[in-house]
Each structure stands twice: as structure tokens, then as C-alpha cells.
């Protein structure tokens, strides 16, 4: 049985790339093979033109990994964890200190540098893994669900940090179950399912494939009866909430004109589901994935 069925994936230099897929699709296996934690049975991996089989030292030196599970010693202080990781990449102690200070400060962990890692909160543990992954300043940073279990505030600050790292030239590959995160951060996207790549394109082009979007309108005043909306599929969820399905050929201005004509006043509007999430679910359904 093969977890991956001959996938072919290319990530451009400087990209912020999303690798999405349901649980068990093969994302972590792909990452495991790239980071040498899973033995591959066949195929080739090139990291910045270095073959991972023949130029293993050069290739591995370019990769930084933030794994899905916490995987540092629970007994070591945070600073020691980062310094040791630098050492494994051949960075002399003096230089490692400077870099550890830089990244632990940037990630808000410098004050906790002497605390045993087990005393950190879940979110700070994830940040520590990011600092550890960056200490050798990799050109390719792989993040396997880095914000799983992290509160909204911390997640947003991590997004800002990762965007800045990417802006400075680090290529980032991200797997996540928060599709809002992928849509917000990534320029290109691949979707993997049952060990196959079922979509590999730019985020923009993928989102343009979304033929129907559902919007929710909150009304300022309740309406008793919904007038005929013509080409728009419109229905009332309660007296002050409407749901509208907008297809590719339709625009919201026409819908607002209809609201104006019928004296329906809109207080606010939002997408029913994240756009990428809607597409993701449809793609998986098309790939005979049980939902």
C-alpha cells in the first residue's frame, strides 16, 4: 500500500505555498519524505536544485521544519533547544546565540529563554518550534499545521510573522486545516487526496473556479414576506436574515438594487462559508471523498 501515488509538485522560490488535503490524504507523508523522517520507496526530491539523495547535506541545510506535533525535549530550557538545533546545522555557538536571541525575541520568547519548555503554553510551544526551525535561516520553511490549537490572537500574530519571513525571501510551504489561513497567506495551492494531487494552481485561479458563493445579509428591519428576486436564489433564514446564492455571471450591485426597490435595508453582509472551504469540499466530493 502506498501513501503517495507518484505525486509531482514544484514550489517556486519565494512562494507561500499551501498544501491542503483531508486527514490521511498524504500531506504529512509528503513533508516527512522531504524532511527525511519518512523513507521513500521511489522518486526524487530536489531542494533548490540539490538532490536529496546525492547532495543530502546541502539539501537538508536549506530546509526548516515546524512539525505538527510538539517534538522538543520537555525538560530542556527554550534557549538550549534553539542553540542545540543551530549546532546540528553546524552553526558555531557564538553565532547561534545571536540568532537564538533574534528569533526568540521576535517570537516573544526571550523572557522565557531559561524556562523548561514544558512550562510554556500550547501557543508558545508552537512559537518555540518556529524559532527552532528558523535558527539556521533556511531558504525553505515547511509548516505542518503550525496554528493548530492556537488562539485567534496568537494565530494572527503568527500570520504576520510568517508573511514577513516570506517577504524577506524565505519560501514557505504550509499545510493547515484552517482554510481561511491558506486563503489569506498563500499565493499558490495544491490539494492532495488519497495520495494524488487533485489540484495544483494559483490561489486566485482556484478561487475563480468557485461558480456559486453564498452570502448572508443581516437586515436592519424584519421583513414579513420575501418578494420574488428574479434570477437570484434568495431565502429567508429568519425575519432579519437573508441568504443569497450568487453565481459567476451575477453581481452584487444588481442584488442591492433589488433590495433598494423592495425597501429591504441591509445592515451587514458576510460569506456563509470561507470561499476556499467551499471549493475544497466540492473538489473532495468530486474525488469521491466521503464527507
Amino acid at each position: 500500500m502506498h501513501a503517495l501515488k507518484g505525486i509531482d509538485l514544484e514550489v517556486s522560490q519565494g512562494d507561500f505555498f499551501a498544501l491542503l488535503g483531508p486527514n490521511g490524504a498524504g500531506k504529512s507523508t509528503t513533508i516527512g519524505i522531504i524532511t527525511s523522517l519518512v523513507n521513500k520507496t521511489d522518486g526524487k526530491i530536489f531542494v533548490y536544485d540539490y538532490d536529496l539523495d546525492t547532495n543530502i547535506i546541502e539539501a537538508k541545510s536549506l530546509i526548516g521544519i515546524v512539525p505538527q506535533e510538539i517534538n522538543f525535549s520537555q525538560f530542556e530550557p527554550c534557549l538550549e533547544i534553539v542553540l542545540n538545533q543551530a549546532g546540528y546545522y553546524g552553526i558555531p555557538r557564538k553565532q547561534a546565540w545571536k540568532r537564538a536571541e533574534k528569533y526568540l525575541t521576535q517570537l516573544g520568547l526571550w523572557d522565557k529563554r531559561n524556562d523548561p519548555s514544558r512550562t510554556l503554553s500550547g501557543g508558545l510551544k508552537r512559537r518555540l518550534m518556529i524559532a527552532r526551525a528558523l535558527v539556521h535561516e533556511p531558504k525553505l520553511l515547511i509548516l505542518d499545521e503550525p496554528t493548530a490549537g492556537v488562539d485567534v490572537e496568537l494565530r494572527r500574530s503568527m500570520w504576520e510573522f510568517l508573511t514577513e519571513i516570506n517577504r524577506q525571501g524565505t519560501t514557505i510551504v504550509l499545510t493547515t486545516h484552517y482554510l481561511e489561513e491558506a486563503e489569506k497567506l498563500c499565493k499558490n495551492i495544491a490539494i492532495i487526496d488519497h495520495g494524488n494531487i487533485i489540484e495544483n494552481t494559483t490561489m486566485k485561479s482556484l478561487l475563480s473556479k468557485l461558480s456559486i458563493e453564498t452570502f448572508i445579509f443581516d437586515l436592519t428591519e424584519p421583513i414579513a414576506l420575501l418578494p420574488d428576486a428574479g434570477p437570484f436564489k434568495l431565502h429567508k433564514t429568519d425575519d432579519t436574515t437573508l441568504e443569497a446564492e450568487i453565481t459567476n455571471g451575477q453581481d452584487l450591485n444588481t442584488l442591492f438594487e433589488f433590495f433598494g426597490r423592495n425597501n429591504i435595508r441591509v445592515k451587514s453582509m458576510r460569506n456563509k462559508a470561507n470561499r476556499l472551504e467551499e471549493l475544497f469540499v466540492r473538489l473532495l466530493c468530486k474525488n469521491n471523498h466521503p464527507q
Partner: protein
Amino acid sequence: MTTMNRNLFVTAFCTIVIKEITRFTRIWIQTILPPAISMALYFLIFGNLIGPRIGMMSGFSYIEFIAPGLIMMSIINNSYANVVSSFFGAKFQRHIEEMLVAPIPDFVILGGYITGGVARGALVGLVVTLVAMFFTRLSIHHLGVVIAVVLLTSILFSLGGFINGIFARKFDDISIIPTFILTPLIYLGGIFYSINLLPEFWQTVSKFNPILYMVNAFRYGLLGVSDVDLMFAFTIITLFIVILFIFSLYLMKIGKGIRN
């Protein structure tokens, strides 16, 4: 090997060694103190209380005779325990992945763990020797032999601990080998007696116990007496080291217990 790679390997090796030494010295109450206390009890009971009733053995008082074996027992146990617990702990908490994703060849990781085991074995050996000096007079017959036996024995048992750590899946698995194999071999390895006291059949059986050669080589280094030929003892120890080293590298290469 390019100069850049050599520097990388040396830095990585030193990092693993420092990490290992920091680990066992940080928990010195669990790692350094217990062997010192148990050895003091061995010397007190077997050396001072029972020893005078046993009399001379191979031309030495009983406490002098058992001292090299007891020191060697501490070195064996501690070099093994250091690597098996550290390596299995790294596997269990998954921080072994920190090394596996880094550009470190397997032999550097193995070398780092072995050096950590040798460091603990040698340090505990030194502490136990100091304890022994409270109970008996210790002289050194051949310093080179003493150093060589300590180094080779701790390398060998560090390798043993490493292999045990690779195969172990749960914490029980790291105590099975020390309890059911290592301890009986140590106790039957001529620490407390000369095998010349045994009937011929049991003398022959004893010669299949590799620990006999280490204990006797070390005893030769300190006292100048041995039940076995010194060159043969060194050959046996070196042979075991080579076999276990190659086997350890093979296990790492196939990713046994550490890679999916």
C-alpha cells in the same frame, strides 16, 4: 569530505556530546549519586564485613580483589543506562527528529551518543574509584591498560544501550535487557570470584561471558592479575565493538524505530 562539511560534522558532534553531558549532570542525583552509594555498600558488606572471613584471592585481600570488578560494573551499567535512556527518551518525546532532519550523518549522531555514554561511564567510574579508596588501598599496575579497558568497555556498552534504545517501543523495553541479561552476566563475570575456583565445566562456560574479559583486563590494569589472556581480552572487546557499531549504523540507515 569538504572542509565545510567537516566543520559542520564537528560542531554537530560537539553539540550532541554537550547536550548528553548536560543531561546527565543536570540530573546527577539520579545518575552519579546512586552508583556511589551502592558501591559504598558493596565495599562495606562484601569487603569489610564478609571479606576478612573469605581470606585471600589470587594473592590479594578480598576487598582489593573485588574493587576492580565493582568499578567495572559501575562503568558498564552507567554507560549502557545513559545511552538507552537518553536515546529512547529522545525517541519517545520525538526530539530525535531534531537530529534526523538536520544535515548530520548517522555516524555523527551515533558517535555523539557513544561519547555521552563514555563520559558518564568514566565519570561514574572515577567517583566509584574515589569511594573505593575510602575502603582499600588502590594502586595502578598498568595505566595504559586501565584507560584502554575503561574506554573500550564504555564504548561497547554505549553501543549496546543504543541498540536497545532503537528496538525499544515502551519504557519496559529499556529495562528488560539490563535486568535479565546484563545483570546476570556482570555478576557471573568474575567480579566477586576468580573463575579458577570454579569446576572446569563452569570455567569453560564462564569463558563465553564477554564481561569476564573486561573485568579481568581491568583487574590486570589495577592489580596485575587476570584469569584470561590480556591480548585475547582486548581482541574480544574490539571485535564486539566493531560488530555492534556496524549493526547500529545499519539500523540507523534503514531507520529502524526512528523513521517511518
